Protein backbone atom coordinates (compact mmCIF):
# COMPACT_ATOMS: atom_id res chain seq x y z
CA UNK A 1 0.00 0.00 0.00
CA UNK A 2 1.07 3.56 -0.63
CA UNK A 3 0.26 6.66 1.46
CA UNK A 4 -1.13 9.36 -0.82
CA UNK A 5 0.01 12.08 1.60
CA UNK A 6 3.71 11.29 1.95
CA UNK A 7 4.31 8.47 -0.55
CA UNK A 8 5.23 6.06 2.26
CA UNK A 9 5.28 2.48 0.97
CA UNK A 10 4.01 -0.39 3.16
CA UNK A 11 4.24 -4.08 2.34
CA UNK A 12 0.91 -5.93 2.56
CA UNK A 13 -2.74 -5.68 1.50
CA UNK A 14 -4.01 -4.27 4.80
CA UNK A 15 -4.47 -0.54 5.31
CA UNK A 16 -2.56 0.45 8.47
CA UNK A 17 -4.33 2.28 11.31
CA UNK A 18 -2.12 5.31 10.78
CA UNK A 19 0.65 6.06 8.34
CA UNK A 20 3.84 5.37 10.33
CA UNK A 21 5.54 8.23 8.54
CA UNK A 22 3.09 11.13 8.47
CA UNK A 23 0.22 9.86 10.66
CA UNK A 24 -2.39 9.95 7.88
CA UNK A 25 -5.64 7.93 8.36
CA UNK A 26 -6.25 4.54 6.60
CA UNK A 27 -8.28 6.25 3.89
CA UNK A 28 -5.09 7.90 2.64
CA UNK A 29 -3.72 4.52 1.52
CA UNK A 30 -4.08 3.11 -1.97
CA UNK A 31 -2.59 0.07 -3.67
CA UNK A 32 0.99 0.86 -4.62
CA UNK A 33 2.37 0.28 -8.14
CA UNK A 34 4.26 -2.98 -8.43
CA UNK A 35 7.67 -1.48 -9.14
CA UNK A 36 7.47 0.72 -6.02
CA UNK A 37 6.58 -2.30 -3.91
CA UNK A 38 9.53 -4.25 -5.30
CA UNK A 39 11.83 -1.32 -4.60
CA UNK A 40 10.48 -1.06 -1.04
CA UNK A 41 10.95 -4.79 -0.49
CA UNK A 42 14.54 -4.60 -1.67
CA UNK A 43 15.13 -1.95 1.04
CA UNK A 44 12.59 -2.81 3.71
CA UNK A 45 13.80 -0.73 6.65
CA UNK A 46 15.03 2.29 4.74
CA UNK A 47 14.89 5.48 6.81
CA UNK A 48 12.85 8.05 4.95
CA UNK A 49 14.45 11.40 4.27
CA UNK A 50 11.72 13.16 6.23
CA UNK A 51 12.28 10.92 9.25
CA UNK A 52 16.08 11.34 9.04
CA UNK A 53 15.92 15.12 8.99
CA UNK A 54 13.20 15.24 11.62
CA UNK A 55 15.20 13.06 14.03
CA UNK A 56 18.54 14.77 13.59
CA UNK A 57 16.95 18.18 13.34
CA UNK A 58 15.26 17.76 16.72
CA UNK A 59 18.42 16.26 18.20
CA UNK A 60 20.48 19.19 16.99
CA UNK A 61 17.94 21.70 18.21
CA UNK A 62 17.56 20.12 21.66
CA UNK A 63 21.31 19.68 22.16
CA UNK A 64 22.13 23.25 21.19
CA UNK A 65 19.28 24.52 23.38
CA UNK A 66 20.62 22.45 26.28
CA UNK A 67 24.18 23.69 25.74
CA UNK A 68 22.93 27.27 25.62
CA UNK A 69 21.02 26.75 28.86
CA UNK A 70 24.04 25.19 30.62
CA UNK A 71 26.36 27.92 29.38
CA UNK A 72 23.93 30.66 30.38
CA UNK A 73 23.62 29.30 33.91
CA UNK A 74 27.41 28.88 34.19
CA UNK A 75 27.82 32.51 33.08
CA UNK A 76 26.05 33.72 36.24
CA UNK A 77 28.83 32.38 38.48
CA UNK A 78 31.81 34.77 38.34
CA UNK A 79 35.28 33.22 38.34
CA UNK A 80 37.10 36.28 39.65
CA UNK A 81 35.84 38.21 42.66
CA UNK A 82 36.84 41.66 43.85
CA UNK A 83 35.99 41.19 47.50
CA UNK A 84 38.10 42.30 50.45
CA UNK A 85 40.60 39.60 51.46
CA UNK A 86 39.67 37.26 54.25
CA UNK A 87 43.15 37.52 55.82
CA UNK A 88 44.31 40.70 57.52
CA UNK A 89 47.81 41.66 58.64
CA UNK A 90 47.14 43.46 61.92
CA UNK A 91 50.64 44.52 63.03
CA UNK A 92 53.76 43.27 64.82
CA UNK A 93 53.42 41.23 68.04
CA UNK A 94 55.02 43.97 70.15
CA UNK A 95 52.28 46.43 69.12
CA UNK A 96 49.80 44.51 71.27
CA UNK A 97 50.00 44.99 75.04
CA UNK A 98 49.52 41.73 76.91
CA UNK A 99 46.00 41.12 78.19
CA UNK A 100 44.29 43.84 76.15
CA UNK A 101 41.58 43.49 73.53
CA UNK A 102 42.64 45.44 70.44
CA UNK A 103 39.85 46.14 67.93
CA UNK A 104 40.73 45.84 64.21
CA UNK A 105 38.05 47.88 62.36
CA UNK A 106 38.74 46.53 58.83
CA UNK A 107 38.46 42.91 59.95
CA UNK A 108 35.74 43.62 62.56
CA UNK A 109 37.59 41.47 65.07
CA UNK A 110 39.42 41.70 68.40
CA UNK A 111 43.02 40.56 68.70
CA UNK A 112 44.05 39.51 72.23
CA UNK A 113 47.68 39.15 73.28
CA UNK A 114 47.68 36.52 76.02
CA UNK A 115 50.84 35.32 77.71
CA UNK A 116 52.40 32.88 75.29
CA UNK A 117 50.40 33.71 72.20
CA UNK A 118 47.64 35.50 70.31
CA UNK A 119 43.95 34.91 69.99
CA UNK A 120 41.47 36.58 67.70
CA UNK A 121 37.69 36.65 67.99
CA UNK A 122 35.17 38.08 65.56
CA UNK A 123 33.20 41.11 66.73
CA UNK A 124 30.24 40.32 64.45
CA UNK A 125 27.16 39.57 66.56
CA UNK A 126 25.57 36.27 65.58
CA UNK A 127 22.10 37.84 65.85
CA UNK A 128 21.97 40.39 63.01
CA UNK A 129 25.59 41.24 62.39
CA UNK A 130 26.18 44.40 64.46
CA UNK A 131 29.66 44.97 65.90
CA UNK A 132 29.93 43.89 69.54
CA UNK A 133 31.96 45.96 72.03
CA UNK A 134 34.44 44.61 74.57
CA UNK A 135 33.56 45.93 78.04
CA UNK A 136 36.67 45.47 80.19
CA UNK A 137 35.13 46.18 83.64
CA UNK A 138 32.76 43.20 83.38
CA UNK A 139 34.94 41.20 80.92
CA UNK A 140 32.09 40.69 78.45
CA UNK A 141 31.20 41.48 74.82
CA UNK A 142 28.04 43.61 74.54
CA UNK A 143 26.08 44.17 71.36
CA UNK A 144 24.69 47.74 71.08
CA UNK A 145 21.84 46.80 68.75
CA UNK A 146 19.62 44.30 70.59
CA UNK A 147 21.46 43.71 73.84
CA UNK A 148 23.09 40.36 73.14
CA UNK A 149 25.90 39.58 75.60
CA UNK A 150 28.82 37.19 75.35
CA UNK A 151 31.35 36.09 77.96
CA UNK A 152 35.08 36.58 77.47
CA UNK A 153 35.31 33.14 75.83
CA UNK A 154 32.63 34.09 73.30
CA UNK A 155 29.73 32.08 74.71
CA UNK A 156 26.46 33.97 74.61
CA UNK A 157 24.48 34.32 77.81
CA UNK A 158 21.92 37.06 77.18
CA UNK A 159 19.88 38.64 74.42
CA UNK A 160 18.61 37.26 71.13
CA UNK A 161 21.94 35.98 69.72
CA UNK A 162 21.48 32.37 68.57
CA UNK A 163 25.15 31.27 68.57
CA UNK A 164 28.49 31.98 70.25
CA UNK A 165 31.06 34.38 68.79
CA UNK A 166 33.53 32.68 66.44
CA UNK A 167 37.25 32.45 67.18
CA UNK A 168 39.52 33.16 64.25
CA UNK A 169 42.70 31.44 63.14
CA UNK A 170 45.87 33.43 63.96
CA UNK A 171 49.18 32.99 62.16
CA UNK A 172 52.46 34.78 61.61
CA UNK A 173 53.36 36.23 58.21
CA UNK A 174 56.93 35.83 56.86
CA UNK A 175 57.57 39.53 57.62
CA UNK A 176 56.77 38.91 61.29
CA UNK A 177 53.30 40.44 61.39
CA UNK A 178 50.33 38.83 63.04
CA UNK A 179 47.73 37.60 60.52
CA UNK A 180 44.11 36.83 61.32
CA UNK A 181 41.85 34.87 58.99
CA UNK A 182 38.25 36.09 59.11
CA UNK A 183 37.03 33.15 57.00
CA UNK A 184 38.55 30.10 58.72
CA UNK A 185 38.14 26.76 56.93
CA UNK A 186 36.18 25.52 59.93
CA UNK A 187 34.59 27.23 62.88
CA UNK A 188 36.75 27.25 65.96
CA UNK A 189 34.53 26.82 69.00
CA UNK A 190 35.30 28.70 72.23
CA UNK A 191 35.68 25.42 74.12
CA UNK A 192 38.54 24.41 71.83
CA UNK A 193 40.43 27.64 72.46
CA UNK A 194 39.94 27.64 76.19
CA UNK A 195 40.23 23.94 76.95
CA UNK A 196 42.93 22.80 79.41
Amino acid at each position, binding site marked *: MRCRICNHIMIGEERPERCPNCGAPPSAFEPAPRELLLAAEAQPAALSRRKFFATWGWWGFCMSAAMTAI*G*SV*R*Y*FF*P*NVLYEPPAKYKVGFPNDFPIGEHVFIPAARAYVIHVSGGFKAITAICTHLGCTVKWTPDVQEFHCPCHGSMYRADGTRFAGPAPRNLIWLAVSLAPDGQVVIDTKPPRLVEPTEVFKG
Partner: protein
Amino acid sequence: MNGKMGERIKNAIVKSRVWRSVFRHGAPVTGRNRALTMFTNFFLHIMPTKVRAHALRPTYTFGLGVISFILFIILVVTGVFLMLYYVPTTSNFNGAYDSIKDLQYSVSYGRLMRNVHRWAAHFMVATVFFHMCRVFYTGAYKPPREFNWNVGVILLLITLLLSFTGYLLPWDQLAFWAIQVGTNIPNSAPVLGHTIRFLLIGGNEVGQGALTRFYALHIFVLPLALAVILGVHFWRVRKDGGLSKPGEVWHDVPEGYRHE
Protein backbone atom coordinates in the same frame (compact mmCIF):
# COMPACT_ATOMS: atom_id res chain seq x y z
CA MET B 1 -6.82 0.55 37.36
CA ASN B 2 -3.71 2.34 36.31
CA GLY B 3 -5.28 3.62 33.13
CA LYS B 4 -8.37 4.73 35.02
CA MET B 5 -6.22 6.56 37.54
CA GLY B 6 -4.30 8.27 34.73
CA GLU B 7 -7.58 9.25 33.10
CA ARG B 8 -8.86 10.77 36.34
CA ILE B 9 -5.67 12.75 36.92
CA LYS B 10 -5.73 13.94 33.33
CA ASN B 11 -9.37 15.02 33.66
CA ALA B 12 -8.67 16.78 36.95
CA ILE B 13 -5.97 18.82 35.24
CA VAL B 14 -7.55 19.40 31.84
CA LYS B 15 -11.00 20.28 33.24
CA SER B 16 -9.66 22.57 35.96
CA ARG B 17 -10.44 26.27 35.68
CA VAL B 18 -6.73 27.12 35.64
CA TRP B 19 -6.07 24.86 32.65
CA ARG B 20 -9.11 26.14 30.76
CA SER B 21 -8.15 29.73 31.51
CA VAL B 22 -4.81 29.11 29.75
CA PHE B 23 -5.97 26.86 26.89
CA ARG B 24 -9.03 28.77 25.82
CA HIS B 25 -9.95 26.79 22.73
CA GLY B 26 -9.44 23.36 21.16
CA ALA B 27 -6.55 22.11 19.05
CA PRO B 28 -6.08 24.03 15.77
CA VAL B 29 -7.63 21.33 13.57
CA THR B 30 -10.75 23.21 12.46
CA GLY B 31 -10.78 26.47 10.56
CA ARG B 32 -12.38 28.26 13.48
CA ASN B 33 -9.80 27.00 16.01
CA ARG B 34 -6.94 27.84 13.66
CA ALA B 35 -8.19 31.41 13.48
CA LEU B 36 -8.72 31.50 17.27
CA THR B 37 -5.14 30.30 17.77
CA MET B 38 -3.91 33.32 15.90
CA PHE B 39 -6.01 36.06 17.35
CA THR B 40 -6.35 34.94 20.97
CA ASN B 41 -2.56 34.65 21.37
CA PHE B 42 -0.63 37.82 22.09
CA PHE B 43 2.49 36.64 20.28
CA LEU B 44 0.66 35.27 17.25
CA HIS B 45 -1.97 37.95 16.81
CA ILE B 46 0.63 40.06 15.06
CA MET B 47 0.42 37.51 12.24
CA PRO B 48 -2.56 37.82 9.92
CA THR B 49 -5.11 35.00 10.17
CA LYS B 50 -4.86 34.68 6.41
CA VAL B 51 -2.08 35.61 4.00
CA ARG B 52 -1.99 36.08 0.25
CA ALA B 53 -0.21 33.35 -1.70
CA HIS B 54 2.51 35.66 -3.06
CA ALA B 55 3.47 36.64 0.49
CA LEU B 56 4.52 33.07 1.21
CA ARG B 57 7.30 33.20 -1.37
CA PRO B 58 10.48 33.59 0.72
CA THR B 59 12.21 35.70 -1.90
CA TYR B 60 9.47 38.33 -1.77
CA THR B 61 10.75 39.73 1.56
CA PHE B 62 13.76 37.48 2.31
CA GLY B 63 12.39 37.63 5.89
CA LEU B 64 14.55 40.68 6.50
CA GLY B 65 12.11 42.38 8.88
CA VAL B 66 11.67 39.25 10.96
CA ILE B 67 15.43 38.64 10.98
CA SER B 68 15.99 42.19 12.25
CA PHE B 69 13.40 41.61 14.98
CA ILE B 70 15.01 38.31 16.04
CA LEU B 71 18.41 40.01 16.12
CA PHE B 72 16.89 42.67 18.38
CA ILE B 73 15.62 39.94 20.74
CA ILE B 74 19.11 38.34 20.73
CA LEU B 75 20.64 41.74 21.50
CA VAL B 76 18.26 42.35 24.40
CA VAL B 77 18.99 38.92 25.91
CA THR B 78 22.78 39.01 25.48
CA GLY B 79 22.74 42.68 26.54
CA VAL B 80 21.11 41.79 29.86
CA PHE B 81 23.76 39.09 30.32
CA LEU B 82 26.55 41.58 29.67
CA MET B 83 25.00 44.03 32.15
CA LEU B 84 25.66 41.52 34.95
CA TYR B 85 29.41 42.18 34.69
CA TYR B 86 29.74 45.53 32.93
CA VAL B 87 30.53 48.57 35.12
CA PRO B 88 29.95 51.95 33.44
CA THR B 89 32.75 53.91 35.13
CA THR B 90 35.94 55.41 33.73
CA SER B 91 37.91 54.23 36.77
CA ASN B 92 41.31 52.76 35.97
CA PHE B 93 40.70 49.90 38.36
CA ASN B 94 37.60 47.71 37.93
CA GLY B 95 36.03 50.26 35.60
CA ALA B 96 34.37 49.76 32.21
CA TYR B 97 37.56 48.67 30.43
CA ASP B 98 38.51 46.16 33.14
CA SER B 99 35.01 44.72 33.25
CA ILE B 100 35.17 44.11 29.49
CA LYS B 101 38.57 42.42 30.01
CA ASP B 102 36.95 40.28 32.71
CA LEU B 103 34.15 39.32 30.32
CA GLN B 104 36.71 38.41 27.68
CA TYR B 105 39.14 36.46 29.83
CA SER B 106 37.67 35.29 33.14
CA VAL B 107 33.88 34.98 32.90
CA SER B 108 32.69 31.59 31.63
CA TYR B 109 31.15 32.06 28.18
CA GLY B 110 31.68 35.82 28.60
CA ARG B 111 33.57 36.16 25.35
CA LEU B 112 30.90 34.20 23.51
CA MET B 113 28.17 36.38 25.00
CA ARG B 114 30.02 39.58 24.06
CA ASN B 115 30.73 38.41 20.54
CA VAL B 116 27.14 37.33 19.97
CA HIS B 117 26.05 40.82 21.09
CA ARG B 118 28.62 42.43 18.82
CA TRP B 119 27.84 40.40 15.72
CA ALA B 120 24.08 40.58 16.21
CA ALA B 121 24.48 44.37 16.38
CA HIS B 122 26.47 44.46 13.13
CA PHE B 123 23.99 42.15 11.41
CA MET B 124 21.01 44.13 12.68
CA VAL B 125 22.27 47.35 11.08
CA ALA B 126 22.75 45.41 7.82
CA THR B 127 19.38 43.63 7.86
CA VAL B 128 17.48 46.80 8.78
CA PHE B 129 19.15 48.52 5.84
CA PHE B 130 18.41 45.64 3.45
CA HIS B 131 14.83 45.53 4.78
CA MET B 132 14.50 49.16 3.78
CA CYS B 133 15.87 48.33 0.33
CA ARG B 134 13.35 45.50 -0.05
CA VAL B 135 10.48 47.77 0.96
CA PHE B 136 11.66 50.26 -1.63
CA TYR B 137 12.05 47.74 -4.46
CA THR B 138 8.64 46.12 -3.84
CA GLY B 139 6.99 49.55 -3.70
CA ALA B 140 5.81 48.94 -0.15
CA TYR B 141 6.47 52.57 0.79
CA LYS B 142 3.58 53.75 -1.39
CA PRO B 143 0.09 54.56 -0.06
CA PRO B 144 -1.39 53.28 2.15
CA ARG B 145 1.98 52.35 3.73
CA GLU B 146 3.55 55.82 3.71
CA PHE B 147 3.13 56.28 7.46
CA ASN B 148 4.80 52.93 8.16
CA TRP B 149 7.76 53.94 6.00
CA ASN B 150 8.20 56.96 8.30
CA VAL B 151 7.98 54.71 11.36
CA GLY B 152 10.61 52.51 9.73
CA VAL B 153 12.93 55.47 9.19
CA ILE B 154 12.71 56.23 12.94
CA LEU B 155 13.50 52.58 13.68
CA LEU B 156 16.55 52.74 11.41
CA LEU B 157 17.75 55.87 13.23
CA ILE B 158 17.27 54.25 16.64
CA THR B 159 19.17 51.17 15.43
CA LEU B 160 22.08 53.36 14.35
CA LEU B 161 21.98 55.31 17.63
CA LEU B 162 22.03 52.03 19.57
CA SER B 163 25.11 50.99 17.60
CA PHE B 164 26.76 54.34 18.25
CA THR B 165 26.03 54.46 21.99
CA GLY B 166 27.13 50.85 22.43
CA TYR B 167 30.42 51.66 20.72
CA LEU B 168 31.58 53.89 23.62
CA LEU B 169 30.90 51.39 26.39
CA PRO B 170 34.17 49.34 26.21
CA TRP B 171 35.96 52.61 27.00
CA ASP B 172 39.06 51.76 25.00
CA GLN B 173 40.97 54.03 22.59
CA LEU B 174 38.76 53.01 19.66
CA ALA B 175 35.60 53.85 21.61
CA PHE B 176 36.96 57.10 23.01
CA TRP B 177 38.08 58.56 19.70
CA ALA B 178 35.01 57.33 17.84
CA ILE B 179 32.79 59.23 20.27
CA GLN B 180 35.18 62.19 20.24
CA VAL B 181 34.69 62.39 16.49
CA GLY B 182 31.02 61.40 16.54
CA THR B 183 29.97 64.03 19.04
CA ASN B 184 31.92 66.71 17.17
CA ILE B 185 29.59 66.21 14.22
CA PRO B 186 26.56 67.81 15.97
CA ASN B 187 29.04 70.34 17.34
CA SER B 188 29.40 71.76 13.85
CA ALA B 189 25.65 72.30 13.48
CA PRO B 190 24.63 75.96 13.50
CA VAL B 191 23.25 77.68 16.62
CA LEU B 192 22.42 74.61 18.74
CA GLY B 193 25.49 72.50 17.87
CA HIS B 194 27.47 73.17 21.04
CA THR B 195 24.43 72.68 23.24
CA ILE B 196 23.60 69.33 21.61
CA ARG B 197 27.15 68.08 22.17
CA PHE B 198 27.16 69.40 25.74
CA LEU B 199 23.88 67.57 26.50
CA LEU B 200 24.96 64.41 24.72
CA ILE B 201 28.22 63.93 26.60
CA GLY B 202 27.21 65.69 29.82
CA GLY B 203 30.10 68.18 29.71
CA ASN B 204 32.71 69.62 27.42
CA GLU B 205 35.01 66.59 27.32
CA VAL B 206 34.27 62.93 26.64
CA GLY B 207 34.51 61.55 30.17
CA GLN B 208 32.46 59.95 32.92
CA GLY B 209 29.44 62.09 31.98
CA ALA B 210 29.50 60.81 28.43
CA LEU B 211 29.90 57.19 29.52
CA THR B 212 27.00 57.44 31.99
CA ARG B 213 24.70 59.10 29.47
CA PHE B 214 25.57 56.72 26.64
CA TYR B 215 25.06 53.78 28.99
CA ALA B 216 21.62 55.02 30.05
CA LEU B 217 20.68 55.61 26.41
CA HIS B 218 22.06 52.25 25.31
CA ILE B 219 20.50 50.00 27.91
CA PHE B 220 17.23 51.77 28.65
CA VAL B 221 16.04 54.74 26.63
CA LEU B 222 16.78 53.58 23.10
CA PRO B 223 15.79 49.89 23.49
CA LEU B 224 12.51 50.93 25.11
CA ALA B 225 11.82 53.44 22.35
CA LEU B 226 12.69 50.81 19.74
CA ALA B 227 10.40 48.20 21.33
CA VAL B 228 7.43 50.59 21.50
CA ILE B 229 7.85 51.91 17.95
CA LEU B 230 8.43 48.34 16.72
CA GLY B 231 4.96 47.54 18.10
CA VAL B 232 3.51 50.41 16.07
CA HIS B 233 5.46 49.23 13.01
CA PHE B 234 4.04 45.68 13.22
CA TRP B 235 0.53 46.93 13.93
CA ARG B 236 0.66 49.21 10.89
CA VAL B 237 1.70 46.28 8.68
CA ARG B 238 -1.57 44.57 9.69
CA LYS B 239 -3.64 47.73 9.39
CA ASP B 240 -2.28 48.52 5.93
CA GLY B 241 -3.45 45.15 4.65
CA GLY B 242 -0.38 42.95 5.13
CA LEU B 243 2.45 42.71 2.65
CA SER B 244 2.29 44.82 -0.44
CA LYS B 245 1.61 42.96 -3.66
CA PRO B 246 2.72 43.54 -7.21
CA GLY B 247 0.43 45.92 -9.06
CA GLU B 248 -1.43 46.91 -5.92
CA VAL B 249 -3.34 50.18 -6.09
CA TRP B 250 -5.11 52.32 -3.55
CA HIS B 251 -8.57 50.71 -3.87
CA ASP B 252 -7.08 47.24 -3.22
CA VAL B 253 -6.86 48.23 0.42
CA PRO B 254 -10.01 47.13 2.24
CA GLU B 255 -12.47 49.81 3.31
CA GLY B 256 -11.78 50.91 6.86
CA TYR B 257 -8.08 50.15 6.57
CA ARG B 258 -7.40 53.21 4.45
CA HIS B 259 -6.13 56.37 5.99
CA GLU B 260 -6.88 59.33 3.79
